[in-house]
């Protein structure tokens, strides 16, 4: 495996991808809105709710029923806060967790779509196939590039999010909310597996797709189960505790290992050439 080859392919793919608007929006705009702007908007709710709207009562009854179904650890953390504060803490520290997984998913699939389906659309694959790279090197470089990018962006977003939540939390209620164990497991264990999964699914989708948009839409099907998680959380079906996160991560990694070995078997020059015609 030639390191220079791997780096060259990964860097070139990234360089080319960031010139595509369809790529930039999910990997820059999405994290900024989700993880920088939203925490501030949310922490404003208690002030607004307590002041102008005065519907604290109804919120209290709502959060009360939510609280009853929560795991004990969660209930402990929320104890001693006002109802609006409980709501905010709940959303920022727990409600956002599944939302966070959308980020590695989006970044990885958008980059993979540009690199595989985009290469097909722009007809640039053929020249690459005539270079002395091996099939294995191509596979590794094409998978590793978007994957590493997704992981790096997840970690950066997590750090940003932590800083924002803590700043907002400190200003409004003198409390440091993040990081906690669950988030660390989420960012360093589940997120990479999520990125890998969406990436491999995108590789399969790209083989059939005509171009970037097409692949991206097909690959976007992986977003659905994740949204399921979000609603599951909100509906009180499942909460992201450390245990749940670890199990989720484990399942993702096993799935990923299976799909990766399947993909690597199907991945060869001839297939790439034929599919790129």
């Amino acid at each position, binding site marked *: 495996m*030639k390191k*220079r*080859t791997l*780096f*060259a*392919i990964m860097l*070139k793919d990234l*360089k*080319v991808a960031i*010139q595509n608007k369809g790529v930039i929006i999910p990997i820059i705009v999405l994290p900024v809105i989700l993880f920088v702007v939203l925490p501030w908007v949310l922490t404003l709710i208690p002030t607004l709710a307590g002041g102008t709207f005065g519907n604290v009562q109804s919120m209290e009854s709502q959060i009360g029923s939510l609280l009853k179904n929560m795991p004990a650890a969660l209930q402990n953390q929320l104890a001693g806060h006002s109802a609006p504060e409980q709501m905010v803490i709940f959303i920022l520290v727990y409600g956002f967790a599944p939302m966070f997984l959308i980020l590695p998913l989006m970044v990885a699939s958008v980059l993979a779509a540009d690199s595989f389906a985009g290469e097909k659309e*722009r*007809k*640039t*694959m*053929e*020249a*690459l*196939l*005539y*270079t*002395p*790279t*091996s099939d294995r090197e191509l596979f590794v470089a094409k998978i590793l590039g978007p994957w590493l990018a997704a992981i790096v962006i997840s970690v950066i977003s997590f750090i940003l999010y932590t800083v924002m939540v803590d700043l907002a939390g400190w200003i409004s209620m003198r409390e440091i909310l993040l990081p906690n164990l669950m988030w660390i497991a989420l960012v360093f264990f589940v997120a990479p597996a999520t990125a890998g999964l969406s990436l491999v699914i995108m590789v399969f989708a790209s083989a059939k797709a005509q171009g970037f948009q097409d692949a991206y839409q097909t690959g976007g099907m992986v977003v659905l189960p994740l949204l399921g998680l979000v609603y599951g959380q909100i509906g009180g079906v499942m909460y992201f505790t450390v245990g749940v996160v670890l199990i989720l991560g484990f399942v993702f990694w096993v799935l990923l290992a299976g799909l990766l070995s399947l993909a690597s078997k199907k991945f060869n*020059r*001839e297939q790439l*050439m034929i599919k790129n015609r």
Partner: protein
Amino acid sequence: MNNSVIQINNLTRTFGENKAVGSLSLEVNAGEIFGFLGHNGAGKTTTVRLLNGIYSPSSGSSQVLGIDPQKDGPALRAQTGVLTETPSLDERLSGYDLLAYYADLFTIPKDTVNDRIMSLLTEFGLEKRAKDKVGTYSKGMKQSLALARALLHKPKVLFLDEPTSSLDPVAARHVNDLIERLTRREGCTVFLCTHNLVEAQKLCDRVAVMQHGQLKALGTPADLTRQYIKRQNIELEVEENQIEKTNQILVSHPDLVLRTPVLEKNMLLVTVSGRDAIPEILTLLTVNNISVYRLNPQEVNLEEVYFALNGESK
């Protein structure tokens, strides 16, 4: 035998029912410009892909530079350069960055990369546009850049898939000059896929004519014309008062002369049965004491060979 650079033995590749290349056998010698002719769908591009280890053969085998493309594709591709049918260039990169990217993939020593790229860009007249995105280049500039990429690592065998089909005559001549220079100067072997027969005739040492994946003819352009052209026009100038006699001699040999000669500006236009008939006619006229001042065979080109072959198959 041992100076053959490409050996193809019974190479066959099918796609479903369709035989893209069927039982192809031929050899290409070191340093020659080998023309691979055939019309659309004849199997040219498929052959290039087979010879570079991108497609696997359905049966048969090949060796390029002593390497089986199936067994060690990377080692082979390190020594071959391919100009693909479509330029296959990433338009979001600059010309320079694109070549630098491929320099990495071809593991060209890092300290020589810049010089190599600049000298190629200069040779192709692209040095002023080096920093511009390839997307802003004209068709001809893109083709030049693609050719520069194919030459980047100084390949021993160069595969060119219709290199001039999208170029204007000036650019096409430039590319053809370059191909000739390369083979003569650097001993590079060229495998040239084309359906431009005039070009093939000018450039190629030998040509193969492909049709529906089958090899139809193989040889030097001169060989092929001799073999396949059974009719050739010659201009004949003889002593003016011998024209009548000449005519009589000619028509009395229907095996050599296919039509009654036509007189035009004191010159006889004679259609003879191929190149081999020319010396026979000359002898015939000489024995009969005809003074021949001029005998001018009109050029027969590959195009006629090509159509003769196509006619045969219909």
